[in-house]
């Protein structure tokens, strides 16, 4: 299965260019189109060979860590991508920690008294947040907080790298992490809440109560784990979406992660960089899903037994 997926991805990324009408060389070279470059491209990709051979040449290069050299920036694609990845990872880790830290206790509060005042309030709030896409959230936050209230270092183009100043780095990532965290939180909160409510009606919860165990312990020890399968599944899928959502956020706030790089590459028609990022992100998403499947199997022994 995993092998199949990887083949689909690589073939997909590779043939992307051939699926589209027009001369691949022209598309790849984009604005860097010159006879010399064209000759180099033909040599590099073997564009005159049959298509399946081109694929194997390309795959061999990839396995050697060679994603090609951009014809526009004249730097190896992998170098460009490598410098962007840590930013995405950092954004993802921070936003996911924030999202889970808020979603789990709040979902528990809601599930304790479904349709109670707190639950109604949280549900209404989550609805509203659910209906605000990340790009609007950024625009509005920049409009109201960063500009009107004059909060420092959240405006555009203020990214500080982790290596140079970690406090500055965290500050520069505060706004994007927050926006991404809110987006994830809403999804996690809603999924966990509805599963917790269902779990709390199970007989084994009554059984746990009949043992005289505190409400708190029942929630954390008995109810959370069986309720978290859908949550983890959603998180696995959501993180893939987060990469994409993160693109816009990065682009809007000038944070040089993969998204930012991708969008600028699209702007320059730097095909090889786009192809490289598509490949890296796709593989990343699959690895994340794989990890989450693994976690789900540990959390719920019922699934692996089926």
């Amino acid at each position, binding site marked *: *299965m995993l092998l*199949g*997926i990887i083949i*689909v*991805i690589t073939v*997909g*990324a590779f043939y*992307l*260019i051939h699926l*589209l*009408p027009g001369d691949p060389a022209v*598309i790849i070279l984009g604005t860097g189109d010159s006879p010399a470059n064209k000759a180099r491209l033909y040599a590099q990709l073997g564009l005159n060979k049959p298509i399946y051979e081109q694929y194997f040449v390309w795959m061999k290069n990839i396995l050697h860590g060679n994603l090609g050299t951009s014809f526009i920036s004249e730097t190896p694609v992998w170098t460009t991508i490598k410098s962007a990845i840590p930013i995405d990872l950092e954004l993802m880790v921070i936003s996911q920690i924030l999202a889970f830290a808020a979603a789990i206790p709040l979902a528990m509060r809601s599930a*304790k*008294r479904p349709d109670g005042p707190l639950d109604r309030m949280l549900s209404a709030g989550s*609805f*509203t947040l*659910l*209906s*605000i*896409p*990340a*790009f*609007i959230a950024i*625009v*509005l936050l920049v*409009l109201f907080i960063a*500009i009107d209230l004059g909060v420092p270092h959240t405006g555009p183009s203020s990214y500080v790298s982790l290596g140079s100043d970690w406090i500055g780095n965290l500050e520069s990532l505060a706004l994007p992490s927050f926006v991404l965290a809110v987006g994830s939180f809403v999804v996690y909160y*809603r*999924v966990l809440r*509805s*599963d917790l409510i*269902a779990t*709390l*009606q*199970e*007989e084994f*919860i*009554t059984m746990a*109560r009949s043992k005289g165990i505190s409400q708190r312990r029942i929630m954390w020890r008995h109810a959370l784990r069986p309720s978290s399968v*859908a949550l983890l599944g959603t998180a696995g899928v959501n993180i893939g*979406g987060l*990469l*994409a*959502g993160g*693109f*816009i956020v990065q682009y*809007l706030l000038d944070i040089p992660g993969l998204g930012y790089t*991708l*969008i600028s590459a*699209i*702007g320059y028609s730097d*095909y090889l960089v*786009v*192809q490289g990022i*598509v490949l890296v*992100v*796709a593989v990343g*998403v*699959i690895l994340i*899903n794989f990890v989450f499947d693994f976690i789900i199997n540990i959390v719920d022994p019922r699934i692996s037994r089926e």
Partner: protein
Amino acid sequence: MSNSYFVNELVEEATTQTTPERKKRLGVLFWICVGWLALNVLGAIFANVLPLQDPLYQNYSIINAGPSLHHLFGTDDLGRDIFSRIVFGSRVSIEVSLGSLLIGFGIGAPLGMLAAYRRGKFDSLLTTVMYMFLAFPAIIATIAVLSFWTPRSLLKIIIVVGIASIPLVYRVIRTATMNIATKDYVIAAKVQGATDWRILGRELLPNVAPIGVSFLLIGIATVITLEGSLAFLGLSVNPPTPSWGNMINESRTILQQNPWLAIFPSLALCLFLLCLNFIGDRLRSHFEVTEGKL
């Protein structure tokens, strides 16, 4: 709280007996949301007939104006009327979402139902293929394809987003059908001598449809958001055609001079999404579809 399932059981025992069917109410808010969506759709359909200003007409004498009687929502940096651009812009969102989901559901749903009902090799092969495509992040694929498939047009966006949604629809519908296909009443229909098509149409479809509808609403909201994101990347319909995403994107550089250009399309988009989400949620609880199933 706990063992309230048990109360439900009692109530069910008690109410199934003599009381005739009690209609579950969807609530006033539900109908307000439906009304709002209907208004948007009608506006999009009849935008040409409505007494609106030309959304492309540039009036340089009033650029970046705030709301006024003449320009309800103000004007943008080229002096175009924001209100009329919002009404015309809704067309893109609605067309893209309905068009692509037509493709997604038209192909994904029948395949999903058939695979779940038939099982066997057909199912395992199709499911493996679909899951492989599912692993490939749809948004990345969409961005990648759209960025090189020039010139961009509404139809291309619809096709790309539509194809990307097929595996998702397939998975949801297949899971839902499988839950129902194992119920005794489906076996009972088989025992009556019903044909497979009759079982699919009479027994499975009416019970899968609520889940399909719930998912459709979520799908519409997702596609509208996606279109907005694409617009930000310059991958949606080409300017000057208005779309909500395009407008918000255009407002970015002149946020301080003209916040209206950001606020009104954002509001229109968010309200539209809010209504969709609310309707979806109400229908889910009405049909007793849990969120985890989607």
